[in-house]
């Protein structure tokens, strides 16, 4: 294998030629989820203004503050995240509005997470919005593209945008697996730690008057099953990079990982909506094939794609 062929392989792996519509479709799906999330979680996000000041434990960019912000600041950032979020969704002045959306959303979520407990269900969505805001995801299926006279031709920069989203997804799972091995070594694979977590988490939720999983409580009394569940969890997390090596493997990993999240929901009553509704896996699929017909039906986009390169 020559040096040139290795270089070409690396370029094709990291920056494959892909249609602008694919990255744009992922932008639309991710923005759609983020806006629905903002709407559904709105009351919880805005409730942060009523928290007692002594509970304030800033995270992320909110660490810039020593004391809680005035309620008006929270309302303002929430409103801005809606304005920029809609601009991000429709691809209006994307180069400006996308980073603005990423920052306003980051502030809103970080502020909500600054009261003693961090919600890990939001990390991956935030990562994807950040990566999309740095890409050229507004070059198709957008008002910017309409103004420019049409979608951009297929290019390596769109493939890179898609690739980085997938790498980001995979990295997040690998980090979760590494954390388990780092803290407890291979003991985690025995299943005892997972079993104790499931039993403890459900009992704690029950005692705190929250919803819990009766299946999880029942399952905790069957220790024999936990080595398999623990090894499956580690395989999904540490084996995630396999999903980067071919489209089929990527889609297979997404399916298995989705199953993992369904399992987490069933036995722990922990709901990861971004993953369970498949939005987190959009970059592993030809998302434009889902989004473009819908947009065409809504008369926002042409029925046929320009050049779709797989």
């Amino acid at each position, binding site marked *: 294998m020559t040096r040139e062929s290795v270089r070409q392989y690396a370029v094709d792996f990291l920056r494959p030629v892909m249609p602008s519509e694919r990255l744009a479709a992922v932008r639309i799906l991710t923005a759609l989820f983020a806006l629905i999330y903002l709407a559904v979680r709105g009351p919880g996000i805005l409730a942060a203004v009523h928290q007692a000041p002594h509970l304030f434990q800033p995270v*992320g960019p909110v660490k810039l503050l020593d004391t809680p912000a005035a309620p008006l600041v929270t309302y303002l950032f929430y409103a801005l995240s809606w304005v920029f979020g809609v601009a991000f969704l429709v691809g209006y002045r994307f180069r400006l509005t996308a980073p603005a959306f990423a920052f306003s959303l980051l502030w809103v979520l970080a502020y909500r997470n600054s009261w003693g407990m961090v919600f890990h269900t939001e990390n991956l969505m935030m990562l994807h919005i950040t*990566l999309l805001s740095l890409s050229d995801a507004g070059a198709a299926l957008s008002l910017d593209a309409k103004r420019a006279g049409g979608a951009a031709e297929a290019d390596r920069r769109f493939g*890179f945008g898609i690739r980085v989203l997938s790498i980001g997804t995979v990295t997040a799972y690998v980090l979760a697996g590494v954390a388990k091995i780092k*803290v407890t070594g291979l003991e985690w694979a025995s299943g005892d730690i997972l079993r104790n977590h499931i039993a*403890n988490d459900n009992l704690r939720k029950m005692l705190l008057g929250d919803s819990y999983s009766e299946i999880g409580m029942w399952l905790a009394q069957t220790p024999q099953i936990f080595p398999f569940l623990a090894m499956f969890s580690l395989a999904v997390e540490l084996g995630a990079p396999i999903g980067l090596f071919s489209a089929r493997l990527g889609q297979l990993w997404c399916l298995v990982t989705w199953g993992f999240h369904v399992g987490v929901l069933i036995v722990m009553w922990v709901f990861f909506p971004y993953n369970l509704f498949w939005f987190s896996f959009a970059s592993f699929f030809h998302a434009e094939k889902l989004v473009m017909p819908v947009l065409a039906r809504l008369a926002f986009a042409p029925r046929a794609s320009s050049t779709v390169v797989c």
Partner: protein
Amino acid sequence: MFLLDHPVTQVSLAAATLLALASPTIWPKERDDFPLSPYAMFSSRQDDTTRVTHVVAILEDGREVPLAPRFLGTDEVLQAKVTLMRVLKRGKREQVDLCEELAKKVAVDPDLGGAVAVEMRTVTYRTMDYFVDPKAALLKKNVHARCKVER
């Protein structure tokens, strides 16, 4: 060409973002953060007991109903837990204040019509035994505050 479209800029920004993502694992911090997290949830060893500070409504017939997170002004159980831990740390006066505040809320709650008292306490259970016999699984109970529900 826009600066962000240049391959070197794209690769650098993406690499920086991914490095930032991995940074809490490479250089651990004292506490969890957002959006950069060590993703350490469910990774630590747990002993076989569960210790929880919670608030229960005590009904006329002696049954106990744990108060849902909404009574503490949140829809998230973890946030409710943190609020209770903070109140616990801040001493007796705050514990009694919270208890009285919750008793007032319980008094007007249609689902808790039979409640006669509210109790804030810390309980420790043998986790696995709880699923067989909750009463026998109780190892320790420390009552911090108890207030009457007045209607």
